[in-house]
């Protein structure tokens, strides 16, 4: 049947061609667009060393491939076609190839490129079956998953050829800046590919293209027609040239699988069964190899020609069912990016470059645009018009981390001091001087790059221009040459026109019965004694300028006078919690060194004083109010560290009642669980923000504490919330202390205002994160640290111009920890496109997920959770459907075609949808959900990435000697081997999973017990043993912890143990207990949605 089906496609193929013209036209325009950019890119590439290299490679490859291709071409054709689709899917391919095609030579070269593909196939053949699978996977990666199955065997050989071409195709895509970047990575592979033409390449191509999947479900009907063409296509493929290839190829791939799948298996289920066994290994293997090649491919990218080759391979490959290994693998993508882009520094000089993934270690060189560590965008190529943007549904957002901590080998922003005149700004829009400002009239004036206003250059700032119109001193001035820098602010930028005093830290400790009983107070006081020596300070400063104060409380507050002149601290009790005030001024906030003796005495006495307390009630709002008032009285900004244990039920403002009600889940009232109980908290937060008072909340609840309400103030003031449920000193000490140390020591900016300016055409319209906004433009942050992120969404309010692109300037006015008022400026230039394909080619899925998660997590405040989930799914479907409709070949409705850059969108989105907030499991408490909800709100891209798709690292697979981190495996139970040990981390949790049949030696050397059964389940510390394995594992754990902003407590989970349930919750590719779909199911569902949208 399949075959038959596949046959029919043929005719369409012919048809398609005719269609193409039209298509072409559209595509042409797109292409032209793309081509146009392509050229500039060339230019861009010029500067970038990496780029330069890549192109040559591509060329070099082209020839060889061309040689080989012919044979395969036919087959390849099909493949190509498919690939073409992929390419189209990638958009880049489509357009670019088309362009090439149309352009006389261009097309030919493609042929040639195809040729190489052919050669590859040859190579592949030897590998025979495996390759196919590999290809399949590749295809799958391309989304063809199902379709690939059927056709696979026959075409495989041929197919392979194509896949390679695909890779190349993808290589060609580079039109957009993004590609450029990708290609690099790929470029190296390319060379490899040449070496190992066969297998690797296809896979590569697949992943790189990754774009088009044909989910089994829908595939059926269309596929046949497609396949039809394919077959012929294959035959003619070579000749048919890229165009046909593109068109035809996709369908065949898609179709066959689809049909096959649909027919026999039924879409989703089959996939599972099929995938696992055989394919897995292949995948792994193939991926590994694939990676190699990909880099090579990279090089081809620049040279568009590769397209031709692409189509071929996929079709032949299609395995029989939707194979999990065939669907896009996050691990694969991450590994590829790591290999391709981790080696070269990322230079920010070029507009609209897509940076490497967050999971890749790379070095950034600031040459005029802000480092991706500061700003990441969902797309680096913005549609010129709002219509396009609406059509694509791709959110335009930037994830900004203004005070991001940089690795030691990257310089922190230069501080520019303009003296009394202050930073130079545009008179109209108030944008700050930046590298994009145009100096004119010999340097006497400059034109604002944001609003086009022409401003005079003040005499003291005047400088001559060189022949290119650049100021002679451009490279001497950070604000004219760098993407990120700081200005020293003048007094005009200060509150009340007074330079701020150094900020203060106030430690506010719950001393109610619970806090005492758990040993928290004693632990904390002991720790504070030493921790106070590590308050953040300005680099170079001898001691921290930050003053500290102490408050303890239960249902009344105790302030302490720790003035240095006192022999003993003095305690002042304020019981008027209804109307909080600060009972003392002098002696409350003190310099640590001056008052050390008194402070030490105080910290010694606090646990004793309350040792016999029977007070169980606590207050909350008055505590924060007290801290805020204290800062107000001291006329400084600062941070409150609040250590709190229980629901504040004492009679006071902000008194809460236990409203935890699981019955509300999945009702319209569920949202109330996320909303604060009373408005008192918001009101208080506003006051705090006005005072520059940031709150970090450490919670130690034994039961429901209403995190949703309590976290309002930290949330709105730019603070953090830490939660240690059922805190016990023995078990949680390390985690708490480690978090506390980091939190106290980290560099913070206070009393900050952030404003994002954009060039005319787009506007920042929405903001997500931990902050407060009193108007629509200014993000007010009482405190901001290096871990906090603000996600900003942009909307069009006018047309953008491809020439000038779009500019962002994020200006953050803040008070440093030494009390210096500063402005930190981040600039970023983005490209603009008139072709949707360019948009899709320059997207960043991780950032997109970051935005969507935040959007959804905010949505649950106001809408039923189900509606939020549906919205997400719909939006995702629309994004993909739009791609499919406008950028992929038109014919293969049954094929799931994903843009290369977004091929992980479904899997990640599924993780978001399954997350505790949006789909709580039975064991997830309301507090947990609220906690996670607010955590995610200020996460950066790297954190959301690992949070939603945890890393699962096999520990015993790689040789003990290897020092590199093991390669992660996909988060699915199927990937676990019971003879292995795995680490799983998601930024908050860390599990060590021990398989039931792990070698005894391993058990012995890790746990120091003789057998699996003797391992304590739930263990949180590995014994310190002097053997390589133990050292390695502990070292790995340490390094993982070091990467995350919060300490991850280790939990040892044994296979088949009851704790395993907890662990399995994080295997996000599997079906979850709470009803979350497995990856495969969700992909099918997504495909269905897309098809519905398309029809």
């Amino acid at each position, binding site marked *: 049947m399949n075959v038959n089906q596949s046959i029919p496609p043929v005719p369409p193929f012919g048809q398609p061609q005719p269609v193409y013209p039209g298509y072409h036209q559209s595509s042409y325009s797109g292409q032209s667009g793309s081509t146009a950019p392509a050229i500039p890119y060339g230019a861009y590439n010029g500067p970038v060393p990496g780029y330069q290299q890549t192109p040559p490679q591509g060329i070099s490859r082209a020839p060889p491939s061309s040689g080989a291709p012919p044979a395969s071409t036919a087959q390849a054709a099909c493949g190509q076609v498919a690939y073409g689709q992929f390419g189209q899917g990638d958009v880049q391919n489509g357009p670019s190839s088309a362009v090439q095609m149309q352009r006389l030579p261009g097309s030919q070269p493609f042929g040639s490129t195809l040729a190489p593909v052919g050669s590859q196939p040859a190579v592949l053949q030897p590998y025979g079956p495996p390759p196919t699978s590999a290809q399949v996977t590749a295809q799958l990666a391309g989304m063809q998953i199902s379709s690939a199955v059927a056709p696979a065997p026959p075409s495989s050989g041929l197919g392979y050829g194509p896949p390679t071409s695909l890779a190349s195709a993808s290589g060609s895509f580079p039109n957009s800046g993004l590609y450029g970047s990708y290609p690099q990575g790929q470029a190296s592979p390319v060379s490899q590919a040449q070496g190992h033409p066969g297998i690797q390449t296809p896979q590569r191509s697949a992943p790189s293209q990754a774009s088009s999947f044909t989910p089994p479900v829908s595939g059926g009907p269309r596929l046949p027609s497609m396949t039809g063409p394919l077959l012929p296509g294959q035959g003619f493929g070579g000749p048919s040239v890229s165009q046909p290839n593109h068109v035809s190829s996709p369908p065949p791939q898609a179709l066959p699988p689809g049909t096959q799948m649909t027919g026999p298996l039924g879409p989703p289920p089959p996939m599972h069964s099929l995938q696992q066994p055989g394919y897995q290994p292949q995948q792994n293997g193939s991926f590994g190899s694939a990676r190699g090649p990909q880099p090579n491919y990279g090089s081809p990218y620049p040279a568009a020609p590769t397209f031709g080759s692409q189509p071929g391979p996929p079709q032949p490959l299609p395995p029989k069912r939707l194979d999990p290994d065939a669907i896009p693998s996050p691990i694969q993508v991450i590994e590829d990016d790591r290999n391709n882009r981790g080696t070269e520094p990322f230079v920010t000089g070029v507009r609209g470059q897509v940076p490497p993934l967050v999971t890749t270690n790379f070095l950034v060189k600031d040459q005029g645009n802000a480092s991706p560590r500061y700003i990441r965008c969902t797309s680096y190529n913005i549609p010129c018009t709002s219509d396009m943007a609406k059509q694509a549904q791709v959110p335009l957002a930037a994830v900004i981390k203004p005070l991001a901590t940089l690795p030691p080998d990257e310089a922190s922003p230069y501080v520019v001091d303009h003296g009394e005149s202050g930073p130079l700004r545009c008179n109209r829009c108030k944008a700050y001087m930046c590298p994009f400002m145009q100096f004119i009239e010999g340097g006497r004036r400059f034109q604002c790059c944001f609003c086009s206003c022409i401003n005079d250059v003040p005499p003291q700032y005047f400088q001559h221009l060189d022949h290119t119109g650049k100021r002679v001193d451009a490279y001497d001035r950070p604000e004219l040459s760098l993407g990120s820098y700081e200005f020293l602010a003048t007094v005009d930028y200060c509150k009340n026109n007074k330079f701020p005093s150094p900020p203060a830290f106030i430690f506010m400790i719950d001393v109610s019965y619970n806090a005492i009983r758990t040993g928290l107070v004693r632990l904390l006081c002991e720790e504070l004694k030493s921790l106070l020596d590590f308050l953040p300070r300005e680099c170079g400063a001898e001691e921290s300028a930050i003053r500290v104060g102490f408050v303890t409380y239960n249902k*009344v507050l*105790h*302030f*302490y006078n720790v003035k240095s002149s*006192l022999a*003993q*601290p*003095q*305690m*002042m*009790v*304020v*019981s*008027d919690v209804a*109307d909080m*005030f600060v*009972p*003392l*001024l*002098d*002696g409350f906030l003190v310099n640590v060194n001056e008052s050390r003796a008194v402070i030490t*005495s*105080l910290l010694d*006495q606090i646990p*004793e*004083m309350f040792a016999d307390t029977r007070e169980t009630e606590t207050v909350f709002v008055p505590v924060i109010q007290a801290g805020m008032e204290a800062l107000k009285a001291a006329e400084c900004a600062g941070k409150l560290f609040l250590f709190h244990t229980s629901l504040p039920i004492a009679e006071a403002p902000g008194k809460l009642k236990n409203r935890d009600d699981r019955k509300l889940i999945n009702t319209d009232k569920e949202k109330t669980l996320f909303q604060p109980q009373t408005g008192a908290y918001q009101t208080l937060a506003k006051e705090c923000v006005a005072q520059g008072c940031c709150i970090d909340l450490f919670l130690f609840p034994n039961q429901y504490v209403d995190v949703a309400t309590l976290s309002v103030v930290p949330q709105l003031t730019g603070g953090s919330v830490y939660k240690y449920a059922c805190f016990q000193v023995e078990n949680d000490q390390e985690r708490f202390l480690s978090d506390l140390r980091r939190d106290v020591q980290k560099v913070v900016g206070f009393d900050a205002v952030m404003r994002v300016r954009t060039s005319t055409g787009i506007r920042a319209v929405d903001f997500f994160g931990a902050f407060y906004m009193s108007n629509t433009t200014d993000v007010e942050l009482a405190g901001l640290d290096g871990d906090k992120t603000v996600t900003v969404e942009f909307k069009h309010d006018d047309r953008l111009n491809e020439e000038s692109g779009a500019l962002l300037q994020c200006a953050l006015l803040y008070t440093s920890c030494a009390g210096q008022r500063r402005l930190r400026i981040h600039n970023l230039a983005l490209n603009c496109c008139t072709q949707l394909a360019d948009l899709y080619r320059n997207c960043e899925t991780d950032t997109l997920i970051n935005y969507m998660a935040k959007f959804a997590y905010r949505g649950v405040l106001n809408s039923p959770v189900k509606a939020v989930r549906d919205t997400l799914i719909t939006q995702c479907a629309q994004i993909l459907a739009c791609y499919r409709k406008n950028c992929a070949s038109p014919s293969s409705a049954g094929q799931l075609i994903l843009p290369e850059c977004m091929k992980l969108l479904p899997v990640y989105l599924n993780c978001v949808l399954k997350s505790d907030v949006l789909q709580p499991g039975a064991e997830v408490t309301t507090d947990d959900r609220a906690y996670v909800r607010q955590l995610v709100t200020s996460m950066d891209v790297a954190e959301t990435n690992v949070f939603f798709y945890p890393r699962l690292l096999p520990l015993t697979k790689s040789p003990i000697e290897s020092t590199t981190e093991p390669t992660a495996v996909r988060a699915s139970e199927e990937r676990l081997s019971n003879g292995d040990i795995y680490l799983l981390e998601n930024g908050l949790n860390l599990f060590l999973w021990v398989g039931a049949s792990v070698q005894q030696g391993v058990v012995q050397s890790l746990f120091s017990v003789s057998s699996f059964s003797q391992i304590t389940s739930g263990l949180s510390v590995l014994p310190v043993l002097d053997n390589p394995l133990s050292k390695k594992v502990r070292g790995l754990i340490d390094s993982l912890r070091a990467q995350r902003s919060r300490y991850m407590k280790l939990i040892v989970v044994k296979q088949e143990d009851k704790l395993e349930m907890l662990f399995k919750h994080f295997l996000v590719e599997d079906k979850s207990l709470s009803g979350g779909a497995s990856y495969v199911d969700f992909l099918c569902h997504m495909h269905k949605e897309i098809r519905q949208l398309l029809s």
Partner: protein
Amino acid sequence: MATYLEFIQQNEERDGVRFSWNVWPSSRLEATRMVVPLACLFTPLKERPDLPPVQYEPVLCSRPTCKAVLNPLCQVDYRAKLWACNFCFQRNQFPPAYGGISEVNQPAELMPQFSTIEYMIQRGAQSPLIFLYVVDTCLEEDDLQALKESLQMSLSLLPPDALVGLITFGRMVQVHELSCEGISKSYVFRGTKDLTAKQIQDMLGLTKPAMPMQQARPAQPQEHPFVSSRFLQPVHKIDMNLTDLLGELQRDPWPVTQGKRPLRSTGVALSIAVGLLEGTFPNTGARIMLFTGGPPTQGPGMVVGDELKIPIRSWHDIEKDNARFMKKATKHYEMLANRTAANGHCIDIYACALDQTGLLEMKCCANLTGGYMVMGDSFNTSLFKQTFQRIFTKDFNGDFRMAFGATLDVKTSRELKIAGAIGPCVSLNVKGPCVSENELGVGGTSQWKICGLDLTSTLGIYFEVVNQHNAPIPQGGRGAIQFVTHYQHSSTQRRIRVTTIARNWADAQTQLRHIEAAFDQEAAAVLMARLGVFRAESEEGPDVLRWLDRQLIRLCQKFGQYNKEDPASFRLSDSFSLYPQFMFHLRRSPFLQVFNNSPDESSYYRHHFARQDLTQSLIMIQPILYSYSFHGPPEPVLLDSSSILADKILLMDTFFQIVIYLGETIAQWRKAGYQDMPEYENFKHLLQAPLDDAQEILQARFPMPRYINTEHGGSQARFLLSKVNPSQTHNNLYAWGQETGAPILTDDVSLQVFMDHLKKLAVSSAC
């Protein structure tokens, strides 16, 4: 008439009572015609070293509305063991313990010499005295230091088992916990927020929330003393602790910007002090001692804003109704005073500042509770230090000369009713048959509460004769009055002092001479003055003066001997001779004149006037002037400008001030240093003599008077000049001649003019 003087003196010595009339007009009509009401000055705790308290309880009349105490005036039937109440004529059985009485074996209370007797009551738990210091920290450094030292010193003067507490205030109010080791702990309250007693007690953790769990626990009652003792501790326990705490006391740390007053939360601090005691030790003797160095500037009870450019209210402002905080503040303090009085505690105010401190508004705290009011310029003066120290002086028994929580119950025989009382007391609103409907002073009751009193605290008690003219009292009839004072002795015992007095009735028509002769003009002057001051507190000054004048004229008309329309013929008998002069000086006194006095000063003077005994009161009305010269021993001279002579040294005692004034010549001699020359040793002695006398007065007086040593032409001489009768002024100076005294630059009328007018009006038939 010496007999009457002796009688009066005797009575005062024995009973502490001075009546305006010692023979009583026998009908209402006559009594009203006497002008000066029938009234007495009663000193409940008149020091009686010769009167040991009896160790049993008084025998009461069994009639529930009477309950008079058995006294020497009662008719006793020794055989039937019955006694008849001399107030209600109820016949009562003696209690069994009195079974052995007979004419020769009388209990003390039946003996005539025990018209005043003191009973000791053994019942009831004895609770220690409580001293709660409420200390203002918005002081200058040296002021605060001095105050701290005074307070530390005072700890050594307290009985070891007395409870002490400490509240400090400035912008905030801090209640210090005294029992803690290591960290000193205090509860802090916002100075701007008025709190109810309940809130205060909650916030101090004095009340346990009504949790069923805890109520069920038997330990509950034991917890109570523990809880309260966090703030009030026996001196012997926390002596050192508190001394250190006081030592570490800092000035209010909140910054005071230029042109502002420090924020001082006196109102809230007092409120908390009251609330604290109210919750922990109701109806136990306790002193709240408020030390303040300036006006309350915020919160309830605020008297003036913190803007220095707006001065604190003056009499002028008050007249113009321009004192915006006064009414509210007064209301706040009145509320506190009433609560305090209800709890049997008293509030002392020690206000030391150069400017006013809001005594006008706060006066009721001391006035209604029997607390002390001390006003000075600084805590760093001997005036304050010694005054404060004097509070803790002890009597011959080693007990404090103070008592607490007294109730004064007055019973009268049928012909009399009680019109009211004026003094440091509040009404207990006990209506009874002997309560008059006409009120004089605090009336409408036969019982008053005096929360704090010392041995000289004196009340003016006013009576009304109700006997109708047509129901004459039988010849030889006597009216009786019994004063029953329950109080807590400073040794913490409960005691009852009973004073029963009787006076003869006389028919004013036939026996006016008797009545006249038995007139006690000193007591009458003070009693009238108290009435005047009492009225002045609520009325306009001029009205009071007019009223006083009319009373005086009517008295002169009634008792003067004169021919109609012939002023020259006017005479007054000896028993009235000084009265007009008292009135003259009273009119000029700071009690009625607000000119030249701040509202605070007026309140201060009136406070003391309303509680001192007769002697002191008279000094206040008409200061005493002694003259020292080479011509003889010191002699009292007329309070007249003519007494100011160049070769004399004057010593004036106005109660509030002691002025030593050197005449012009003396001053010159001293300047020339004669006193240092051995040959002029007598001059040295002359100079020394008034100083020694002044010292003697200073030692005995509470509060310490302001001590002024000045000379002719000195700026401080104004204190003398403003007091003397201006017989010589710039108007009549040349008519009198230089040698006879010093001219006073004033437009005030002199006593001579006053008397002339009085005579004229008295003899005129117009009024």
